Every structure is written in C-alpha cells, then in structure tokens.
C-alpha cells in the first residue's frame, strides 16, 4: 500500500510531463456521457449555482477536464447555501474529488473550497447521527440441568434485538466536541423481562453524554456522563472485560500533557460497576469518586499508576469507603510484540469486609504483523476472591447473559485466590474474512469447587464496511461440583450475529 501511495505522489508531480497517464491529463476530453455533465446541469437547473459558465462548457459539447474543473470551481464559489440540499453538496463534493488535480493545477484553493463545503454542510446538518445495530440469534444447549445460561430467562433458543445504539455528535468548534450515546436492547437497563429485546423495545437510555473542551494552559476538560476505563485506554484487556474499572460516571475530567507525561483527574458521582443498571442511585449514588491517573508513554514502553478513591457520604451509618490502587507497565520488544500488565491492591472499609484484596495480570500481546498468520493474546491473572469490583465475567464472548468461566467464583471464600488463563488467537485472512479461537480457564482455589474451562471459535465475514456477519461457538464446562446443581456441567451456544453500522 505504501508503494501505491508513493506512486500516487509521483503521479501528482509528473502529471503534466506524463501524457500517457490519461486519467490525469487535464486536456483530455471528458466523454459526453460522463456523469459530471449531468451533475453540473442538475445543480444549475435547480438554481443551486449561479454564474453558470460561458461557452467553454455547455453540457452538449465535449469539454476538457480543465474546463469542467473551472465550472466546478465557479459552482462552489457561487453556491446558494439556502437552496442546497445534502444531496447537492454530496454531488459537489464528488465533483471536487473527481477534478481535484485540475483544480489544484488551476491554482484554485481547494483547501478553501473544502472548508466552504464543510461549513455549508455544517449549516445544513452540523449534528451527526450515526448508529450501530446488533441482532443475535442464539441456539443454546445444556447437557445437564436444563438451564441455558447463554440466554436470558433460561431460554433454549433466543432471537434478540441485542443492542441498538445511536450516536449523536457535534464538533462545536476546533476544541469543543459533544458526544451522546443512546441505547436500547438487551444491554439497556431494567429488569430482564423489560430489556431482553423481545417484544417492543423499552428502557432506552443515554449511556454516555459529555462535552470535551479546552481550558487555559492547554488543559482538556470533560463534563457529563462518560466512561472511566484506564485498562481499556492502555490496551490492558481484550474482548470482555477489564479486571477493574470500565464503569461510567457523572462528573468532570481534567487532563494535561507535559510532553510524554499525562495526568488525568476525575471527580464524579453515580459511578457504578458496569452492571445492567449502569449508573445507579444505590450505594454508588452516595459515593464521591476521585480518580487520578499518571502515565508516561514512550515509543517502546509505558508506565503509570491509577488511584480510585470512593468516599461514601450517604446518610446511612456505615463505613463504605473503598480505595483501589493500580500500577501498570508495558514494553514492546518489537512494534508487534509487547509484554504488559497491571497490579492492584485495595484498602476497604467495613461495608466491603475490611478487605485488602489484590489482583494482577500479565499479558503477552502479539500482533498479526509479527507472526503473519495470526495474532496471539496470552493473559494470566490472579485475583483474591475478596477483591471488590473485579469482573468475574471477563473473558466471556459477550455481555449480559452469556455464560462465563468465572460464574462459580466463591466470593465468600475470602482466603481464596482465583487464577485465570485466557488465550485468544485471531486471524485476519483478508479484508473480508476473519476467524478466531479462544480458551479460558479459571482455577478457583476452593477445595470443593471444580475448576471451569471455556473455549470457542468463530468466523467473521465483513460483507461491506457497514455490514458484518459472525458465526461463533462457545462452550463452558463448570465441572461437577458447584454451588447448586444447576451450575454444574456444560453449557454451549451457537450464535449468529448480524452487525450493521451506519
């Protein structure tokens, strides 16, 4: 591809000296059936452009690319914004792209024209509405007790409008950006029966809602409801989910860079673990959150620490402060091979059991560029069972109702320390086809509890940039001894996913 770019750059330079390159020869005639004639004619007939050109281009006569380019330039200068629709602007943009080289050669400031088009487009619809839609068809099986943990309400087979999200955004000025995410479906809030995606969709919610802007001294400022996910920011988890963090909060975020060093401070409330209830009014609603992250990133390594202070200030007579500290680091052996990890320790109040849990993980992250045929993610983690807030559903193939290897983790076994392995290999065969295989194992360190193993595989097809299909299989074996009979044995699911982005 780099070669292609080099060739493109060369073409731009030698366009006039290489008449053989007919596509960029400005004196070559534009064929009479070319769409550009109709496009300009249409815009003129609708009164979108005035100053329609002189005899150099009349639509019925052959014209050179230079001549058509001059028409495009005039059209853009004279465009009447009040009359133009989005389709008209699309047409003009298409023309600009088609005749970009000629416009450059004519000395027309394409830069200014582009900005003008952008401004016009903003004037018509500066708000951008985009979205993503996911539909899952799941066929589950259970070899033991008839509980289908892969589907909601224990259903065997389930077709769901799993998740539908709309993104509403606006770039207000060069430094200010508004972002909102509106979602519904199985991942929305509410009781299972209301949010399962069957029947009419209910419980729509604004999951993210914030504004970014710039304060004096080059300080980035964010206000609203946003995600706190430093593990995600530094690439410390794959798939689903972080060991700790990845929750949303209502509050303020300030960050500033000093060269390669970055400091981020968050103060907020209503932060909750990313349960279906999301931002809540329970204990978390009575907790002030302070988060500080200090990070240094160089080309080959990064190092940093994050501190979470959750201070309970509710009316109940309880001690419920929770302090969690993490240090993380990563080193790249080559651009495509990295070793990284994070170590957490906690200090909690009585409400949380006066626990001082610890958790950590180490990851070997090998990109496909290194091994050519596959990427490889090897993760090992340990977690004290009394570590508060750790996600035991991590390594699942989906959120919400999917079964997961850590389901039987015995939180009450405070002296226990669960150990996890997670390995994933993903292959991008070409632009369209991809595959993956994955394996997870949880060693619960609880005498009477069997370890659990999960494995799965899948194949993806990127039909167009907007449409993606995936067929995946996943299985969890919980062993023979668990809390309840229903938690024994194996569950598995065959999932057909349709994802559309627009």
């Amino acid at each position, binding site marked *: 591809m780099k070669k292609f770019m080099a060739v493109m750059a060369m073409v*731009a330079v030698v366009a006039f000296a290489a008449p053989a390159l007919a596509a960029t020869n400005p004196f070559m005639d534009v064929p009479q059936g070319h769409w550009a004639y109709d496009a300009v004619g249409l815009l003129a007939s609708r009164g979108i452009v005035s100053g329609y050109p002189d005899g150099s281009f009349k639509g019925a006569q052959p014209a050179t690319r230079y001549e058509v380019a001059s028409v495009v330039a005039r059209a853009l200068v004279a465009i009447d914004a009040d009359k133009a629709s989005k389709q008209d602007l699309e047409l003009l943009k298409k023309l600009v792209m088609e005749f970009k080289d000629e416009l450059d050669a004519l000395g027309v400031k394409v830069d200014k024209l582009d900005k003008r088009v952008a401004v016009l487009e903003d004037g018509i619809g500066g708000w951008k509405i985009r*979205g993503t839609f996911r539909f899952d068809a799941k066929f589950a099986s259970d070899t033991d007790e008839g509980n289908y943990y892969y589907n909601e309400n224990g259903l065997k087979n389930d077709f769901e409008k799993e998740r539908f999200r709309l993104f509403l955004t606006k770039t207000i000025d060069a430094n200010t950006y508004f972002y909102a*995410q509106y979602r519904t479906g199985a991942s929305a809030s509410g009781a299972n029966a209301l949010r399962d995606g069957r029947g009419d969709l209910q419980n729509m919610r604004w999951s993210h809602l914030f504004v970014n802007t710039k304060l004096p001294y080059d300080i980035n400022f964010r206000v609203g409801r946003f995600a706190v996910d430093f593990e995600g920011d530094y690439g410390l988890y794959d798939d689903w989910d972080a060991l700790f963090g990845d929750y949303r909060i209502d509050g303020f975020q300030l960050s500033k860079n000093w060269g390669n060093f970055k400091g981020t401070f968050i103060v907020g409330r209503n932060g909750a673990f990313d349960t279906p209830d999301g931002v809540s009014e329970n204990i978390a609603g009575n907790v002030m959150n302070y988060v500080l992250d200090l990070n240094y990133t160089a080309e080959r390594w990064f190092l940093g620490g994050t501190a979470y202070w959750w201070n309970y200030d509710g009316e109940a007579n309880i001690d419920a402060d929770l302090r969690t500290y993490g240090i993380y680091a990563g080193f790249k052996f*080559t651009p495509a091979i990295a070793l990284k990890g994070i170590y957490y320790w906690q200090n909690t109040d009585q409400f949380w059991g006066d626990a001082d849990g610890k958790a950590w993980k180490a990851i*070997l992250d090998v990109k496909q560029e290194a091994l050519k045929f596959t990427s490889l993610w090897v993760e*090992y983690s340990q977690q004290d069972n009394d570590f508060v807030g750790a996600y035991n559903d991590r390594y699942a193939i*989906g959120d919400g109702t999917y079964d997961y290897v850590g389901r039987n983790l015995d939180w009450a076994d405070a002296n226990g320390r669960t150990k996890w392995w997670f390995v994933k290999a993903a292959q991008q065969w070409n632009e369209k086809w991809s595959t993956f295989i994955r394996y997870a194992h949880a060693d619960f360190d609880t005498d009477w509890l069997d370890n659990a193993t999960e494995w799965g595989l899948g194949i993806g097809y990127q039909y167009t940039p907007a449409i993606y299909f995936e067929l995946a299989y996943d299985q969890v074996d919980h062993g023979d001894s668990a809390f309840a009979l229903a938690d024994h044995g194996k569950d598995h699911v065959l999932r057909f996913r349709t994802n559309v982005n*627009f």
Partner: protein
Amino acid sequence: MKKTAILIIMLISAAALLCGSSAEHAFADTFDQVLLRWTKWEKKVDRDGGSIEIRATYYSAEYIEAMIQKEAKDNLWTQSEADDYKYKFLSTLRLDELIPINIKFINNGPTMYLGPFDIMVKMRIGNKTYKPSDYDRRFNFKFQGEKEGLAFFPRFDEKTGKDLLKDVKSVTLEFSPAVSPLLEGRTISFVWNVADDNPQKLYEGKAASRLETDRLIKRLEKLRKDKAEEESKLSAINGEIDTIQKRLDELAKQ
C-alpha cells in the same frame, strides 16, 4: 510466588522467542522491517462487532531511503533513474519544510466525518501541539471503509524559524476522540522516537543538487521580487524629493 516468577519468566521467554523468529523473518525483508518500525497502529473493536483501525507511518529518512531503494530494486532502475525518482519524491514530500505522515483509516464502524481534518489530528512536540500545515483533502469527506493519505506538519516554527525537532527525542501524533463514535471519548495517540532521524542525509548526490538548485531559484526569484519592490519604493521617494525640491524652488523665486 514461585509460580508467579516462573510464569513471568515463561511469558518473557515466549516474547523473546517470538522476537527472535520475527527478527529473523524481517531480516529477509528489510523494507517490511523498516516499515513496521515507523508504522504505529491501533484497532478498536466494538462489542457489537464494528471496528476502527488507525495506522500512521512517519516519513523518516530511514523509511524514505528504504522506500526509494525498494522501488529502484523492484523496477531495476539505473542510478540516474533512482536519483530522478528520489528528486521527484522528495519534492512531493516537501521534507525540507514539513514532516509528512501517512495516515490510514480502516473503518468498519459508523460513518466517519473528519472534515475539517486539521482539527482532528495534531502533532505534539514537547509541550506544544501543531495542526497539519497541509493534508489530503479527501479526509474531509465522510466515509466507511478505507481512506489513506498524507498529512504534513510544520518542521520549523512559523514565527522564529527554529527547527522544531532540534534536540527533540520524540513526537506524538494525537487523534481527536471526534474521529469516530466507537472511541467513546478515547484519544488515540502514537509516539515515534525521532532523535536519530536525520532527513539531511537524504539530501546527497544528484537529487540533492537538483533540490538545491530549485531552492536557489526560488530564493533568487524572491530576492528579485524584493529588489523590484525596493526599487519601486526608491523611485517613489525620488519622485517625491523632486516634487518637493521643485516646490521649494518655486517658493524661493516668489
């Protein structure tokens, strides 16, 4: 604890092993190795299945030289042809004034609106950030799928003319969270160590002579223009002196 130590040793050994095999593989293909060294990328896969991948390649002297050598080798060029290509390529890159970076988006997620692109990306050098001086205009239009082009950042301070990369260890390319809603407010950034990058190394041989000739011609044109302006000013002042002198003479006669 022992188990932990063993595990970490295992992971490091595995990484070292992979590095070894990777290095061996790359040795056979120097251009790919150089490309990988100067290319940074990040892929964000959404839980719904959409994805956005951003790749950026810093046009260092090493990378440009490797690219020219590869072209020469692939096309069986003579030295003169290679010099000619180098001259045209360097002219296009405007390396003596700007820092070119190739940027590629692979967007299998919601539509991206990047216009105007110069507020979507910036380069951080030390404590200061710089907007692109120029960029591929195609970035201004909405798209799904792939889009690739060059963005050029200033190499010299606009006011003082100071070399921005002098004594600088690294530069960072930062993308605004506004590039894609899939980022959910996250900033994507790439760091390159440029302490050992020396673009002046490229300006050697015939291509360098031609580029210097171009520069000198530009400078000569500018000097001629300045000269003409100064002569015009001088002529105007002389005319004014004549007029005043004439009037003084007239007044003296009265």
